[in-house]
């Protein structure tokens, strides 16, 4: 009975080979097996989105994916962003817009926003809200988070913003 599964998972550009319990979800794998504690666990039932990471470039809730499913795949976490002490421009945008208070949800928002930015399209505030709806913040009230993402999309898409 394969209650344990051997996996090789590429996380932030590095391959990790581990033998894990079949029931171990990806968020716990990242935190407990790899020590990558930037991915936060809130509800473990797919509601809060704080554990959002990218798997092969797609935003997913890592508490709802078993580690065995990510075998052979490419996982990107919040640890991929900053370069030592230098924040990634998206993180800087969050800082500049005061888009975090306690910071617990921030990694989830950063990864969800990374997936949005990868689409290469500027979005209206309403569209940004819809795209970020899978992550819950209990401190800031979202407005500044939307502003941070909006400014970042303006920067990376390199065009003047049109209010929509």
């Amino acid at each position, binding site marked *: *009975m*394969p*209650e344990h*599964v051997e996996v090789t998972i590429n996380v932030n550009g590095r391959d990790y080979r581990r033998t894990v*319990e*079949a*029931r171990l*979800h990806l968020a*716990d794998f990242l935190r407990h097996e790899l020590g990558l504690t930037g991915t936060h666990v809130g509800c*473990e*039932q*797919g509601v809060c*989105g704080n554990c*959002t990471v990218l798997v092969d470039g*797609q*935003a*997913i*809730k890592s*508490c*709802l*994916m*078993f580690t*065995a*499913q990510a075998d052979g795949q490419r996982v990107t976490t919040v640890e991929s962003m900053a370069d030592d002490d230098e924040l990634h421009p998206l993180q800087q945008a969050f800082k500049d817009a005061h888009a975090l208070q306690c910071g617990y949800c921030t990694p989830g928002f950063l990864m*969800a926003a990374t*997936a949005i930015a990868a689409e290469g399209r500027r979005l209206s505030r309403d569209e940004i809200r*819809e*795209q970020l*709806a*899978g992550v819950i913040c209990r401190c800031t009230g979202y407005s500044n988070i939307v502003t941070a993402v909006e400014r970042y999309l303006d920067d990376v898409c390199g065009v003047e913003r049109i209010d929509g």
Partner: protein
Amino acid sequence: MKSAPFSYERPESVQQALEILDQHGGMARILAGGQSLAPMLQMRLMQLSAVVDINRLPGLDEIRAEGGVTAFGPLVRYAAIARSPLVSERLPLLGHVVRYVGDPQVRNRGTLAGSLAQADPTGEMPVACLALDATIVASSVSGAREIGIDEFLVGSYATALEPEEMLTEVRFPVVPDSFVFLERNRKHNDFAVINIAVVGRRGSGGSWSALRIALGGVNDRAVLAAGAAQLLEGSTLEDDRIEQAAQSALEVVDPPSDVRGSAEYRLHLVPVYVRRALSMLRDGTEGGYA
């Protein structure tokens, strides 16, 4: 919470997946998107001996058009439905309704087939599939059978699928081109208090046919208001006929009281939403959160 232990199986074929389901005698489940299965396991609402991961099986994520039939494999995810030109051409209601499911992360993973197997009484997919008269293909080691969606949905989180069966396809016939979908939530992305899908075909003389009215959140499963639709067949959806249908729809509901709304509130909403949806269908207004 963490799931109880289970074994992880990664079959090489659908046949092998069916054999594993059979060997576990009802204690194994198919893992497709996992957006319902993983929470069920982690809340310990379900304990399994094995999880059968079909995510690497080729071809199961295809949407096929064969004559009048549009068929979805068990790995067709909401995000794929939302961007499929085939769906927007042949099943525009389905393409519209997926946007109400979960959130972007859930839609990246979750599947149409998984939602039907979960049979959440407030789920959007069962309501849409009832309105669109879907057929479910259930396969096991002893063969495949087809189940109409109305027989497939048995009750709250209960379907006609046997534990040793796998939902291998969802099929749709040619459907009427006009539709309205409405949903009421307490807050964005929450489970629905009520949702409704209506479809119909408007003839050249302005009279309506092929009407179907499906309601979610107001019984232990999504329900079809067949009597109400029958009352409207051949009409031009005049206000008084719509009012009759709205009252008739009450015959098929038996709403629960829960944290999202009382039975009384839902009973109040049923005729309101039937009336609203049918008027919008007649007037060509697009649905939405209401």
